[in-house]
């Protein structure tokens, strides 16, 4: 193992600054095999898709501001709800986490780059074409998909020719995700610096390792399901066509076998980011590191055996309902372990409240609200009342917006100084946080009441009794949407205008290999393996006592 010190590595990093970086624009960005450049491409792409999907959400909330049809035709409204979900899930949140993985995993495990750099390039460049194809369906004669992101037959089979484009786009996104996941697993299992054992890895790396296995297991299932839809639609098969002897309910089982782990694919890396940030700003090691790892693995395992809680209303045997109800409730145990450990990490810590920490604390509180409403939905008898109402919409948006997206923002503010070498504006970061944290609750909390009162989801018009809460929700939505322009402004300012240089460690309480590299890091992260010891390992229990 190398005998170099942390300081030597930082010096090497500075020496390496001007080496090997392609000079031409195309060489640098189109043909790049560098993990940081590819990470940057993923992050830019996902931010763009976040704004596109957000614009669709604004159309949805504008239409729902008042009862009656104001702005768009019902079919276009349905296209917006479907495309908003597909864009946010496959275009914004998932690629953003792959961007974080690309940037951070090699630096966190002491590797020079990802294990398979050329495949890394390919897995990114598939994405823009997949989304161009998906979004282009909005301009086709038959319009975009309008049956919801779940693509349930028979509704999805009633679409026009553009459905083939949707299926092909899903295939391409799936191939991209699988290739990205294979790269992550291959990198983590094979490229760690000597001494970086599995139980010394940062939590973010652990959560991504487990996420990658989830992706490899479930994306082929989605690919198979949409292939069957494609052949049902265009080639006369009857996998899901009841008239031909097929079973449309089977599609729901298959879809949710993919769909529920998909939720954790979006949320587990968020757990990892928050588990990095809270110790830093509490100036304490993460409480119960090993328990956090086992809890993450438990959540991933349980995510495979709970899928039918999404479809209690289709009718299933009582034993089936009981199994899926109790297995779903069981997920609260490892999730509770995580929340307990985050709170215990903060307990009696020397806490400060910079923007990444504010977003992380909001994540813990608001994700827990989303988890609790999930427990309510898990109760089979109660779900018959809540199913397909705005209560479900409120639940999963609490999990995904102040959950996954707040964690993405926390991670961006946390590592942006490392990535760019400059500090962002803390003042504007906090303004962004407070506007987002308040407006996201104004946006989604009233939707619980709408759902309890019986307002169904995916409708452009509604009964007048739902008007007040819809108005409040839409106002929250507009403020939340506008707040994200501040986020874009803070990032652009940090990249192009900020004059405040970031130190190598950036944050006083930060620990881990990424912080011994310069800010910004060298083009190739670690050409020689870094030393693994108490000052460079983020969480290992053996170093914490």
């Amino acid at each position, binding site marked *: 193992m*190398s005998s170099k010190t942390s300081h030597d590595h930082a010096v*090497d990093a500075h*020496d*390496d600054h001007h*080496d090997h970086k392609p000079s031409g624009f195309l060489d640098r960005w189109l043909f790049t095999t560098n993990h940081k450049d590819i990470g940057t491409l993923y992050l830019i792409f996902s931010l763009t898709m976040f704004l596109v999907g957000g614009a669709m959400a604004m159309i949805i909330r504008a239409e729902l501001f008042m009862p009656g049809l104001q702005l768009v035709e019902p079919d276009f409204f349905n296209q917006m709800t479907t495309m908003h979900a597909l864009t946010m899930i496959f275009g914004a949140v998932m690629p953003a986490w792959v961007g974080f993985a690309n940037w951070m995993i090699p630096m966190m495990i002491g590797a*020079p780059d990802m*294990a*398979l750099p050329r*495949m890394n390039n390919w897995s990114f460049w598939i994405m823009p074409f997949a989304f161009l194809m998906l979004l282009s369906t909005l301009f086709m004669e038959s319009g975009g998909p309008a049956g919801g992101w779940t693509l349930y037959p028979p509704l999805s089979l009633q679409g026009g020719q553009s459905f083939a484009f949707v299926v092909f786009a899903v295939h391409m996104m799936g191939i991209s995700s*699988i290739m990205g*996941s*294979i*790269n992550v*697993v*291959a*990198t983590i*299992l*094979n*490229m760690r610096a000597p001494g970086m054992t599995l139980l010394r890895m940062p939590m973010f790396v652990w959560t991504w390792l487990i996420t990658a296995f989830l992706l*490899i*297991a479930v*994306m*082929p*299932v989605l*690919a*198979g*399901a949409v*292939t*069957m839809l494609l052949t049902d639609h265009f080639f006369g*098969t*009857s*996998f899901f066509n009841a008239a031909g*002897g*097929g079973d449309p309910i089977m599609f729901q089982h298959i879809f949710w076998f993919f769909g529920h782990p998909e939720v954790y694919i979006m949320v587990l890396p968020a757990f990892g980011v928050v588990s990095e940030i809270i110790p830093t700003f509490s100036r304490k090691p993460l409480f119960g590191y090993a328990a956090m790892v086992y809890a993450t693995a438990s959540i991933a395992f349980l995510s495979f055996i709970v899928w039918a809680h999404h479809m209690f209303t289709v009718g299933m045997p009582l034993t089936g309902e009981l199994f899926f109800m109790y297995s779903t409730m069981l997920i609260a145990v490892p999730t509770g372990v995580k929340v307990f450990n985050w709170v215990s990490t903060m307990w009696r810590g020397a806490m400060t409240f910079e923007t990444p920490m504010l977003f992380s604390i909001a994540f813990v509180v608001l994700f827990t609200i989303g988890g609790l409403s999930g427990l309510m939905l898990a109760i089979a008898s109660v779900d018959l009342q809540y199913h397909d109402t705005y209560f479900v919409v409120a639940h999963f948006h609490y999990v995904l917006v102040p959950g996954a997206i707040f964690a993405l923002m926390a991670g961006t503010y946390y590592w942006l100084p490392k990535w760019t070498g400059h500090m962002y504006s803390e003042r504007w970061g906090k303004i962004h946080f407070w506007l987002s944290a308040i407006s996201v609750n104004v946006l989604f909390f009233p939707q619980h009441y709408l759902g309890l009162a019986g307002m169904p989801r995916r409708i452009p018009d509604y009964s007048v009794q739902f008007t007040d809460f819809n108005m409040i929700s839409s106002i929250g939505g507009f403020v939340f949407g506008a707040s994200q322009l501040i986020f874009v402004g803070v990032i652009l300012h940090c990249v192009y205008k900020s004059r405040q240089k970031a130190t190598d460690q950036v944050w006083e309480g930060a620990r881990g290999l990424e912080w011994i590299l310069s800010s910004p890091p060298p083009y190739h992260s670690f*050409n*020689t*393996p870094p030393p693994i010891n108490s000052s460079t390992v983020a969480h290992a229990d053996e170093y914490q006592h």
Partner: protein
Amino acid sequence: MNMPSSDSKELQRQRTRAVRTAWALAGLAVVIFVVFILSGVMSQ
């Protein structure tokens, strides 16, 4: 910056192992996809 030859050899070994891991995982993904489709076809 030049890499010491021992580090370079270790890096080469790591990459070889990584390629092997990648093929195994890709095979797993393809098997899931094919078995899944075949199970649907055979149940028709």
